[in-house]
């Protein structure tokens, strides 16, 4: 009887240590993400920004792993259960890759074949508080409510 009691206590201590460890890991990863985010504000180099964004995505995946594995306890489940959850989620590998590729390809196509779309990306627009621009497109839907306020609506109608 006393033996099982100490077993229980040891198990409890182990579980609490695990919770503490994962909490610290999640907090540290979040702080690193935020530091990288703050650092990125002042950066101009596109390559460096891309590298930082990649690091942030890796940290995000690591956080997701720790939440699912330890907080949601999946790591301590039976292997069969883990597989029925994890294997279907593999679909995301295709899902993300294919759709981002598709979006990128669509942008390239439009830049090649749609001069208006490409032109829109070169016209700088003044913010409303800095005076009215040359375009006189009126968005009749919202003007009655929104014009009176100090809104910063772009003057040009953007092209989707």
């Amino acid at each position, binding site marked *: 009887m006393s033996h099982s009691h100490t077993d229980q206590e040891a198990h*409890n201590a182990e*579980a*609490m240590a695990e*919770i503490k460890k994962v*909490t610290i890991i999640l*907090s540290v990863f*979040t702080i690193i*993400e*935020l530091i*990288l*985010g703050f650092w*990125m*504000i002042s950066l101009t180099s596109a390559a460096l920004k891309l590298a930082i*964004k990649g690091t*942030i*995505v890796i940290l*995000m995946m690591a*956080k*997701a792993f720790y*939440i*699912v594995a330890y*907080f*949601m*306890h999946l790591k301590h*489940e*039976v292997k*069969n*259960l883990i597989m*029925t*959850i994890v294997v279907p*989620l593999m*679909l995301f590998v295709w*899902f*993300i890759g294919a*759709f*981002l590729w*598709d*979006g990128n390809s*669509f*942008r390239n196509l*439009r*830049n090649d074949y749609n001069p208006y*779309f*490409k032109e*829109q*990306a070169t*016209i*700088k*627009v003044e913010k409303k508080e800095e005076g009215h621009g040359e375009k006189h497109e009126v968005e009749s*839907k*919202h003007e009655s409510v*929104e014009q009176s306020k100090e*809104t*910063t*609506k*772009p*003057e040009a*109608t*953007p*092209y989707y």
Partner: protein
Amino acid sequence: MSTTTTTASPNEAQLWGGGKSPFSSEYGKVMMWYFLMSDAFTFGAFLISYGTVRFSTNGWPNSNEVFRSFPFAPEGVHAPLVFVSIMTFILIISSVTMVLAVHAGKNMDKSGVVRNMILTIIGGIAFLSCQAWEWNHLHSEGAWWGMNPFLNADGTASTTNFTNFFFTITGFHGFHVFSGVLINIIMLIMTLLNKFEQRGHYLMIEKAGLYWHFVDLVWVFVFTIFYLL
């Protein structure tokens, strides 16, 4: 009682032979996992469509210029990332208190469950309040579904895609937080009514915990994708 054995292979062979749960997990918990998996695909589809649209557009607003306000901060003070990091930590901490509630439930420690459930509910309400403030502030700046007052990072005109996705996805996540808080309140009431003491187990707390952690998990992605990338 325990179904785990040290030798894996004979256990493997008899696993589906009947007489015991092959997942050695309770039915409701397994079903909660499958529900969360389907929910993960819903959120995944939302976030991937956001990524697709963003990749198919030449310009996009800079999140550090859009999300830079803070409650009670004087006009003109710009604090990018500060408010959302507070929201993130609120959700992480409420997730930790939820783990502690589940842990207390496993030990049949009713007072521990009650204490940690209350803390989790407070965390959830605090997160929702932060989100309500942020939505209200963005709306006062002229942002809403179909309305985008922000320019692209390079100064060109932006489409409403940015605000549409932002309000839809954070709104859908906020709705999950809201239902999570409701579930947690129901679990707290059931604990206080000794329902789980009578059943002899706190498995319902574990299932509510799975849902609550999933809400935290989704926020990890939403926070990173909207505010950092």
